[in-house]
């Protein structure tokens, strides 16, 4: 038996579809048409809603994850960031944050304590005086901002890997997660291999002076193998963890590994 036609005899199918499209709400219609003509290169480039659609975002997020893996693969734990003579230091070294210098955290060094959490043997908090007694080293390296600019600075402090050893951290864990005193609660995860890099430093001094407020008093984590936003300032706690806890900028879309 022939299939029963639901169409009214004498009505042109194509005209019917055309008419029904016209009754769709405008946005649906645009999407319907964009979906149909999705060779889309030009539609994409005109910057209309196709670009901001969640499917494009999801794809970009996937590629960014892939790029994390590629960067972890490329990362050589023994490759040192180039160092420079003192004459190469950028003066003045720029202050950079998502707020003005006037709004930068004002930490009282006497009250401040570094909290240590997570997969570590000794979870005691550290005062600034205690931290200052640890052996320190200096480095003059290039700070590269995610925005593209770079500046050479001089940082002095304790290699993070020495501190992690001291507190009995489980260095097989995936991340060291830093939390900061910045308004809106800055935080950032650092993969363990980068945390153990010989140049990754708990920084207490800039240009041989106590770290000024602009550069993250009382403590900054200097990671010359990472972009600037992965060098947290005004650090108040660190947690050794296997969980990816996200970060202030990472959650907004900056690539999480962001290695140099």
């Amino acid at each position: 038996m022939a299939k029963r036609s639901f169409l009214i005899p004498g009505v042109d199918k194509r005209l019917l579809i055309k008419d029904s499209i016209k009754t769709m709400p405008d946005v649906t219609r645009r999407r319907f048409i964009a979906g149909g003509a999705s060779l889309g290169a030009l539609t994409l480039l005109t910057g209309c809603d196709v670009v901001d659609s969640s499917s494009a975002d999801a794809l970009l997020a996937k590629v960014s994850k892939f790029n994390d893996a590629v960067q972890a693969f490329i990362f050589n734990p023994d490759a040192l960031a180039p160092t420079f003579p003192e004459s190469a230091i950028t003066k003045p070294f720029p202050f950079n944050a998502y707020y003005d210098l006037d709004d930068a955290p004002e930490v009282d060094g006497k009250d401040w304590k570094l909290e240590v959490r997570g997969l570590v043997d000794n979870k005691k908090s550290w005062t600034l005086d205690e931290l200052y007694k640890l052996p320190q080293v200096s480095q003059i390296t290039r700070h590269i901002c995610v925005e593209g600019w770079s500046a050479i600075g001089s940082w002095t402090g304790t290699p993070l890997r020495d501190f992690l050893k001291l507190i009995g951290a489980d260095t097989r864990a995936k991340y060291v997660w830093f939390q900061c005193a910045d308004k809106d609660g800055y935080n950032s995860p650092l993969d363990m291999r980068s945390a153990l890099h010989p140049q990754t430093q708990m920084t207490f001094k800039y240009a041989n002076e106590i770290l000024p407020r602009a550069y993250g008093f009382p403590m900054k984590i200097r990671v010359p193998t990472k972009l600037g936003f992965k060098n947290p300032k005004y650090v108040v706690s660190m947690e050794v963890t296997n969980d990816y806890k996200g970060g202030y900028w990472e959650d907004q879309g900056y690539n999480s590994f962001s290695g140099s």
Partner: protein
Amino acid sequence: MSSLTVSDEQVSATPAKVIQPAWVRIMHWVNAFAMILMILSGWQIYNASPLFGFSFPREYTLGGWLGGGLLWHFAAMWLLMINGLAYLVTGFATGRFAKKLLPITPSGVLHDVRAALTFKLGHADLTVYNYVQRVLYAGIIVVGVLIVLTGVGMWKPVQLHWLVMLFGDYPTARYVHFFCMASICAFLVIHVILALLVPKSLRAMIIGR
């Protein structure tokens, strides 16, 4: 555009010489797509910290903000690099580069530039590139290699330190990257104008003949 609608009968009746083989056409358009994504997202990134006293208009940037621009840039780079590498390998392996782009002689270039500027450059045989084309196409391949090398170097200035050092250091690599982009934009303008002036060359890049 009427020349685009060649009927099947016409094509089969006079089997025209293939001017652009399929691999060239596919890689050309993939490259065009990837390059435009790279340029528009690159302008977004540039605007976050301009090298010069100007910014690119927001309407011509991709990603909405720096983070979005970076996501596009570091996604489209794979398409650009893989396609570009495949193009270089195939171009050398098939002998196409040697056959189509060489030789390039100063006198030949001078002669053809003069002819082109006075609209006397012939386009009877599209299978043979004139000296203006040879210089532009060979030049843009070199610029393409440079922009990828500076880009990868800036992406990994520690892991691939030798690569940024080829261009001075990180800040100088940034300038080289910018001027390569500017050259590609200038090429793009000239390339599109010339293709529109000789529409059959555009047709050849679409349907091959």
